[in-house]
């Protein structure tokens, strides 16, 4: 019980610290939201009109009080679950905006992350299983080669090839300009069509980390005594690889995956940017460049909670998957 109280205490402390940082860091950046928005509107080679900045400032409603006062306000609104009105999408509320992007991000990035993890882990396991054979080389080197190509570069290449040259898929967007979003089959298939290229690009670069990680870990576990005994027991090699190699080797990857899932938002900025895909990542980037504090704070809160919960789950899961961590030793 005490243990859980302590865990909960640290969890709360982390949450509080993160929320505070979410408040503080954006405000420490130089630049004022109104100026940032107008500057972006105008472009770099046109003079900024002070009157326009003043109007925008008025529109956004200048924050009241000093930083401490603002912080208190921020905490109290958070406590009430209010996120306020977005600066970038004024007068739409932050909640509304997040509602717009959430499903897209979760669908695209969530699905590809899971797929990447599964594919990466399987390929890595296969490579370890056929260690030092051609399969190993092809998998590791091949995936390194394509997987480490700079993402935006790779994405552009895909667009150039499949969208511009071959015209198989649309260049970008979450759905066609002509379709109307809704839960219809037509819209769904349209959305899927649009997600092929972004998903593909994510799937190319996604698995590499899992592949190498899995391979290395599994090479180790396959060298252990229990794997050797399993061989003597006449377990088929694939079976050994799975329950004796992979099962144990996958553990560090599970932790990694949990964190990666929690951090989905951060990783999706680029893909959404390049493919003009609707989603929270791009929104976040925009919020940061526009100093859109309310939107930023809400998104970061999402990330914070996501990562913390994922972390917590990873810890719990680890205990389940690897009973050894429960063994007691006085340091």
């Amino acid at each position, binding site marked *: 019980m005490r243990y859980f109280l302590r865990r909960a205490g640290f969890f709360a402390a982390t949450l509080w610290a993160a929320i505070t940082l979410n408040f503080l860091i954006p405000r420490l950046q130089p630049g004022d939201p109104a100026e940032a928005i107008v500057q972006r509107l105008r472009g770099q080679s046109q003079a900024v009109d002070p009157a326009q900045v003043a109007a925008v400032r008025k529109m956004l409603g200048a924050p009241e009080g000093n930083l401490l006062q603002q912080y208190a306000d921020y905490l109290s609104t958070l406590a009430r679950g209010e996120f306020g009105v977005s600066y970038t999408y004024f007068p739409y509320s932050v909640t509304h905006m997040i509602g717009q992007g959430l499903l897209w991000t979760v669908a695209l990035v969530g699905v590809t992350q899971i797929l990447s993890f599964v594919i990466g882990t399987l390929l890595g396991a296969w490579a370890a299983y056929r260690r030092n054979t051609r399969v190993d080389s092809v998998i590791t080197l091949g995936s390194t080669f394509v997987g480490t190509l700079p993402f935006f570069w790779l994405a552009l290449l895909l667009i150039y090839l499949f969208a511009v040259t071959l015209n198989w898929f649309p260049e970008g967007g979450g759905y066609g300009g002509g379709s109307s979003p809704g839960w219809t089959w037509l819209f769904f298939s349209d959305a899927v069509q649009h997600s092929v290229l972004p998903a593909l690009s994510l799937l190319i670069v996604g698995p590499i980390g899992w592949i190498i990680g899995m391979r290395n870990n599994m090479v180790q576990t396959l060298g252990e005594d229990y794997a050797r005994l399993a061989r003597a027991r*006449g377990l088929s090699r694939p*079976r050994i690889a799975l329950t004796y190699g992979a*099962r*144990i080797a996958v553990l560090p990857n599970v932790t990694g995956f949990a964190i990666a899932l929690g951090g989905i938002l951060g990783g999706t900025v680029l893909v959404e940017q390049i493919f003009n895909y609707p989603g929270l990542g791009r929104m976040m980037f925009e919020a940061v460049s526009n100093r859109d504090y309310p939107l930023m704070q809400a998104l970061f809160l999402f990330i914070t909670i996501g990562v913390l919960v994922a972390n917590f789950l990873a810890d719990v899961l680890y205990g389940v998957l690897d009973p050894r961590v429960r063994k007691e030793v*006085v340091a």
Partner: protein
Amino acid sequence: MALLEVRDLSVTYSPRGGAPVRAVDRVGFDVAEGEFVGLLGESGCGKSTLGNAVLRLLDKPAAITGGTVVFDGVDVTTADDDTLRPMRWAKVSTVFQSSMNSLNPVITVGAQFADTFKAHSLDPGERARELLELVSLEPDVLRRYPHELSGGMKQRVALALALALSPRFVLLDEPTTGLDVVVQRTILNRLRELRASLGFAVLFISHDLGTVMEMADRVMVMYAGEIVEDQPAGAMLAGPLHPYTRGLLGSYADPRAPEISVDYVPGRPPDLSLLHEGCRFAPRCPVALDECATTHPELLPAGRGATRCLLAGEVPETATRGAFAAARPGAPAGPPVLSVRDAVKDYRGRHGTTRAVDGVSFDLRRGSVTALVGQSGSGKTTLARLVTGIERPTAGSVVFDDDVRVDRLRGRRLKDYRRHVQLVFQDPFAALNPTRTLAYALSRPLRNHLGLPVAEARTRSAELLETVGLTPASQYLDKLPHQLSGGQRQRVVIARALAPEPQVLVADEPISMLDVSIRAEILELLDRLVRERGIAMLYITHDLLSARLLADEVLVLRDGKVVERGPTLRVIRQAEHSYTRLLLDSIPNPSPALPPEPRQAAGDRGR
């Protein structure tokens, strides 16, 4: 045709950047259907290697450099994986020497049974329970993870696994090192019954002379990679043909005897990476002739078997040169260095609490040895962990030097405490860091506790290796643990524990993997240290003979409780508790009588 035919088998380890080691050298033998063959031999002489070669489980850098292994008509040395796989376990199964380490740590014991059945498309049914019963384990073990089991329990699980598919041939590589004699006896008896009913053959590698002699139809003795003697057990007991065998037998004594003394063969086995002219045993042979140094003897029929000796069975009776006698008459005296009071240890698992230690109290005194014997799983290792501060007791206290509460130490103080207390781990396969050389492992305590400079620590490490019989030390210093045999590792673990010259030594089955000869030597070494340096020692063992030889006092543990205690001689000779008596009665007794019916004595045995 015999079930297993080994011909001219040679195995060489050719590690990169090291001299090749011919661990198995032109070995040939047969094992007939249903036969129980014992394999004795000096620690490090190639027994495990031979076993692995027979199973085709050698890993690089070991390679079969010659000969064939034919099992049931299939040449194992050349068969491909697809031929071998169905054979494995269904026909040939094994218990590794590192059996405590060979269970998958992240799945339950039950799942590992299930795996095995599934791999051969069998329905496990109640079989797993029956098997566990066979090795005297509760069915509840099925739900546990390996790390929740004691060393002996893991070993028994491994044994049960080996029998799971009723194979025709089982290779047991020291499968009972972690078992108390009672359990061991029960299991071996069942094994014998099982063998009678199912008729499988066993190749039994062990250092436990008593057991081997009692169980085996035929015994082979290995020395320096070669088979030096091969005889029916009874015949060997009555008339060993090879001087080395004779030496081994001399290292055995019945602990219940009024006066005991064990002999050992002084000297060290030859370096297997060098070429040897002549008889490999010659340098240690008390009866060596001049020509032994130049002529390499062949394995030739003699007596009721075969031997590799120029004297060919005509070995004269000569006393071996080393002998170690029990000299521990009275009860220990002097103030206690370490006191355990009412120690209790509970483990909370997912299926309730296990009480591993239950109200144990005892003292360790300077210059005396307290032996802890008892059933496997009775909490001996747990006690050792409590005493050394690795774990904390659930209740009770551990007091060092009158005022140090070991059960409350942490950080710096715990570290200081460990300067005085050392532990020899039960499982030498887990206790050595696979990535660190022996020199490193040994020099750490020297550098930390004794403050030796680098070069000196290395010299001292070498000396330590020598004292535990790893010679030439320069050969071993830069080796990694996986390049050692089980017994060699065990000796490294002992050497490491001795290195910092501790006041208290807790040794958990320190000699279970050693051959009787080196065992006697190590015991003598420990005895000397205890006596000369005034070490207090907690000696955990299943081997009552060694307890008799070394200990002043014996505690008998059962289900976490001390059921009997007293001076060694008293406990062993006039046991009061029924369990103690059971223990003593279970000591294998190599009977000199010939086995009822000699099985297949001859055959084409090497050249």
